[in-house]
């Protein structure tokens, strides 16, 4: 048994959020630079140049990458040999509260009906799973609403199959157009039930590598290729670069169901993984 306490968790959460709101990961930076080289549309190139310059401006000026510093989404994998001497939700929320103050981040969380701001960006959206070991692994993403708002879920028929899934993803991105700040990352959850496929899609967005399953990896590539033929382009102004990557997570589902969730992420792909 390893004891993990309140402050250990809240400190790590706070630092992680600060890090990803100011420093775009190498993986996301490389995608932007590669697209800038390959893009053939002049206006798209100019937009990509601004997006590329923005990542450097954020670091040089100590300004957040984007003003929408999101709602904090936290996937916590807790080792079975960990003894928590605190309430995990409270510790995570304390870290969120600290980060949004300390790092001058925008507090964007409100009551859904009264729209009154909670004023500290809490509560975070927390998903907990258990695994082996004596550590806590946290995957954290400050998720912006521009892209989240264009996300969709569909309960397809099993007979719709792979083609139906592809069509749903492509149609969702087409309807979104320039609104979710393309070039995009697309998280796709396939299977489970209504809520499971949404969680799969969100967790897929926290990956930086294609699937290890060859069949899934192929589907990820196929959908990405389709999306880059749409001519939506950076900020919806046309061009070759609509999607940087598609990440698919799957889970078995009922014989009568084919749930599919499409979670959209903008080019400012902010996420981080830390271990306690």
């Amino acid at each position, binding site marked *: 048994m390893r004891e993990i306490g309140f402050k250990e968790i809240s400190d790590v959460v706070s630092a992680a959020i600060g890090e990803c709101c100011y420093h775009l990961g190498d993986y996301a930076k490389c995608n932007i630079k590669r697209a800038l080289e390959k893009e053939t549309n002049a206006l798209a190139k100019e937009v990509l140049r601004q*997006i590329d310059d923005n990542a450097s401006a954020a670091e040089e*000026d100590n*300004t957040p990458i984007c*003003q929408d510093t999101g709602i904090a989404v936290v996937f916590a994998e807790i080792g079975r040999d960990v003894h928590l001497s605190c309430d995990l939700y409270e510790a995570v929320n304390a870290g969120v509260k600290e980060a949004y103050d300390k790092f001058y981040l925008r*507090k964007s969380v409100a009551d859904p009906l009264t729209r009154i701001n909670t004023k500290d960006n809490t509560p975070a959206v927390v998903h907990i799973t258990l695994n082996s070991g004596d550590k806590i692994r946290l995957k954290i993403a400050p998720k912006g609403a521009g892209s989240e708002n264009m996300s969709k879920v569909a309960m397809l028929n099993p007979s719709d199959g792979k083609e139906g899934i592809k069509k749903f993803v492509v149609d969702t991105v087409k309807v979104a157009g320039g*609104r979710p*700040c393309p070039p995009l990352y697309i998280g796709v959850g396939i299977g489970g039930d209504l809520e499971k496929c949404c969680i799969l899609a969100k967790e897929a967005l926290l990956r930086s590598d294609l699937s290890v399953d060859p069949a899934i990896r192929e589907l990820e590539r196929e959908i990405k290729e389709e999306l880059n033929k749409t001519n939506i382009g950076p900020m919806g102004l046309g061009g070759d670069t609509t999607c940087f990557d598609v990440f698919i997570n799957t889970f078995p589902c009922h014989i009568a169901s084919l749930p599919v969730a499409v979670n959209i992420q903008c080019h400012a792909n902010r996420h981080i993984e830390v271990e306690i």
Partner: protein
Amino acid sequence: MIDVSELKAGQTIYLTGTIYTARDAAHGRLKALLDAGEKSPVDFEGKFIYYAGPTPERPGRPIGAIGPTTSSRMDSFISYMPSLKVAGMIGKGDRSDKVIEACKKYKMVYLLATGGAGALLARCVKSSKVVAFDDLGCEAIRELTVENFPVIVAYDTLGGNIFQRTK
């Protein structure tokens, strides 16, 4: 600031002068005031409304990150724009046909700033102050003095629409 009737969809321009931020909550407040027959707390005549809610500024700095938010959420307020005599709006993404029509009819333009370039755009903001609805925090109306703020004309006064080709 600029003669909007000369602008054409697809053109890149650089704004210098005064613009005002207003997003979801500020539009809701403005609508309530105007519906009640009261005056807008801010004189928007000839100015641009920027759909944006910045991060808090660090001490000694004029502003935090300040990129555009999705404009289509403000489409339902478009009928209030002519009475406020705005020159136009700045945001991101395409909008409904009634916005395109209003731009044509009332000689307004809709401009795009690059979404997710909030740190870069902050460099063009030289000063900033809250001028209305302070209690709305990041959604308050701010007066911004901008210099060479880069925007692309999306809808012009003749019905030109940069998103046409993708539709």
